[in-house]
């Protein structure tokens, strides 16, 4: 964020508190004072000390879907447990495919993470913990990995 943007943000915040009809010169004084007091903390922004890019931002991944794969010995309650965790995390199920082959359970599930409650790391941890209680293995991976690897 450069100086102009900072001043703009402060001005907006002051107007929000004081209302649209606040005295303009008072606002200017306040903004000048605030900016001067925080300026030293902004540090030396001349090159080469600070990059021009904003490294604090963490934009989301390009994919909003995850592939959840569950493998292991078949047993009661696996599907129920997994879908319960997903419901709690506010993830909707886009697609699901389940097979039992010679007693081995394999479930593949595509979940939409648009309304994910918490981080993907949290969801991974909860699913892996649940899976270990049930004696199966869970893998949670962003969907675009599979698209990249298996589609031209």
């Amino acid at each position, binding site marked *: 964020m450069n100086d102009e943007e900072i001043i703009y943000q402060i001005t907006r915040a002051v107007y929000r508190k004081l209302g649209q009809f606040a005295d303009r010169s008072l606002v200017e004084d306040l903004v000048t004072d605030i900016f001067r007091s925080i300026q030293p903390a902004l540090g030396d922004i001349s090159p080469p000390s600070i990059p021009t890019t904003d490294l604090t931002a963490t934009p989301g991944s390009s994919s909003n879907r995850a592939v959840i794969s569950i493998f292991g010995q078949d047993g009661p309650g696996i599907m129920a447990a997994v879908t319960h965790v997903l419901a709690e995390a506010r993830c909707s199920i886009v697609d699901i495919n389940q097979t039992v082959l010679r007693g081995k359970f394999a479930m*593949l599930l595509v979940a939409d993470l648009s309304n994910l409650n918490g981080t993907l790391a949290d969801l991974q941890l909860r699913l892996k913990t649940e899976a270990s209680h049930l004696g199966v293995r869970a893998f949670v991976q962003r969907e675009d990995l*599979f698209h990249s690897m298996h589609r031209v």
Partner: protein
Amino acid sequence: MDYSIYEILQTIRMTEMENLDIRTVTMGVSLTDCADRDINRVCDNVQKKLLGYAAKLVPTVNEISAEYGIPVANKRLSVTPLAQVGAACENRDYVKLARAVDAVAQEIGVDFVGGFSALVHKGTTKAEDAYFEALPEALAVTNRLCGSVSVATTRVGINMDAIKRLGHTLREMAAKTAHKQGLGCAKFVIFANPVEDNPFMAGAFFGAGEPEVTVNVGVSGPGVVAHAVKQAGDCDLGELAEVIKRMAFKITRAGELIGREAAKRLNAPFGIIDLSLAPTPLVGDSVGEILQYMGLEFPGAHGSTAALALLTDAVKKGGVMASSYVGGLSGAFIPVSEDHVMITAAHNGALTFDKLEAMTSVCSVGLDMVVIPGDTPPETISGIIADEVAIGVMNSKTTAIRIIPAPGKKVGEMVEFGGLLGRAPVMAVNTFKCADFIRRGGRIPAPIQGLRN
């Protein structure tokens, strides 16, 4: 469902059982604007700049790795050749600069930082003379810093004066780290035709034509290719090349995805993906194993050069199909100490030094992590370097030399480096002399294939 069970299982098997990993996410940072007359200010500028760009590198990459379920083995930095960064100083204290870069690498938490480098393929400047003086000490007193020197290109020929000097430098470097079996030499690479965007260590540096900052990715996966070759069974070599190519495509795609995601989250442009089959000492993560599955009893047997040529070419073709930004070295690495099959082959006599040199003419790097007797004369070391760079120069390809004259060690003794660097038997070198040839010095002219304008 958009993907079959087979495809999803294959992906999971690659990461869980076949050691597919992103070997490195390497952020390249230009340090050209850190120059100053005062060495202390240069150190300060460099540290501030690296912290500014790379402070979040390690946590960001770890986060992406978890989200995609693909391990990222290393997080690294590459920087502008430090010989150039310190050139303007009145007091060219390159050891001080080396320490400063090493300290900031530790603070950021990266595994290695590459770029204690100089490009001297046509000759040395006064600053580069000071760099050469500091080189053995700088790599002995730092832990994460790696260095490299370019001594030859197809365009300008071979700087034999620099090669003559490096024979002595390597011996000194080994002596200064004798208590660690000459480990300093394991962090130093000599190049012909170096690439400016290589993400792999120890030879990474950030070239003069590079932008302010980029994210480059190195992907490995010899285990994945070995499994595919094994599964292919008794097919002919044309079919085998096709199998390797398909697997290289998938590995490259996974790598590019991770690289682009890392670049996006770090607000830096994506540079290149380097698809290089780079082994580790682990069983199931070996290029030598691939050669064995192809039908060789051990690497070094007759047929090894042909097998490696097929492998390197198929890997490149699969990679190029998968991504428009394949760069770096891309191909197959054949380090000795980092590959358990190569270690055994060197130990049981299947792989000799001369056969290894022949194989490097078709691999993507060169003589890598080769341990030679500690008393090998400096001129002989220079001769080894000259031979290897000649292969690169005449074939318009990168070749590299990372050899360790292990102090006090004789042929056949085992040298342990530990970790990713592994262990290797001391290999015999030709003991006939080449000193009179090396002593001539000068510059071997560029070959005719360098004059392509």
